[in-house]
């Protein structure tokens, strides 16, 4: 079974600084998807960034970028120029590739990292 580990329950960063959130996962699959989701106090789960395992290039979305190390099974999230609105729980997630068109792919979440932005 796939597992996702986030070893940092809490992180804090000064506003405008850069912070990196760690995520490792365990799988025997060669192809899969990886995601970072953000959950602000409103509880809404918001997709931040995604990465296909077959792509070597690290995904980037504005101030958010990942460091994907497939051999090490590591998928860290870097947030540059941190803003107060970035304060939230961040979840790393792993998704299998469905073997048919049915919805049997599983999205497995890590336990989350609570990010605090210090003004």
């Amino acid at each position: 079974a796939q597992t996702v580990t986030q070893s940092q329950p809490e992180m804090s960063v000064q506003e405008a600084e850069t912070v990196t959130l760690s995520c490792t996962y365990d799988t025997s699959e060669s192809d899969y998807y990886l995601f970072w989701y953000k959950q602000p106090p409103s509880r809404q789960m918001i997709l931040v960034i995604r990465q296909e395992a077959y792509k070597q290039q690290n995904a980037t979305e504005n101030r958010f970028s990942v460091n994907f190390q497939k051999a090490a099974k590591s998928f860290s999230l870097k947030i540059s120029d941190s803003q107060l609105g970035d304060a939230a729980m961040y979840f790393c997630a792993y998704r299998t590739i469905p073997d048919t068109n049915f919805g049997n792919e599983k999205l497995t979440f890590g336990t989350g990292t609570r990010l605090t932005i210090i003004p």
Partner: protein
Amino acid sequence: DTAVSQTPKYLVTQMGNDKSIKCEQNLGHDTMYWYKQDSKKFLKIMFSYNNKELIINETVPNRFSPKSPDKAHLNLHINSLELGDSAVYFCASSQVSRQVRTFGSGTRLTVV
């Protein structure tokens, strides 16, 4: 327009009661899911439906019964509620051919 909407947002009920949570998506997705987020914020899938057919059914007590009347709706009915059922329940949807799962804003269930 809300893409994935859940009702109610908050639900407080006594042990032993039966309650339902409703979910609707207007994205035209063919797969819908129920997730449970416990007090430690851990998110775990409970069920997934594809075109009204149950696909994933994790080890969830029989007291939980999902119902999908059509592709756009997936309701969760819980019988004989227990204290341990207190959690935030998230509905989500996706188009199987795509990667992204769109989540609702969650329903906080408190069993007293």
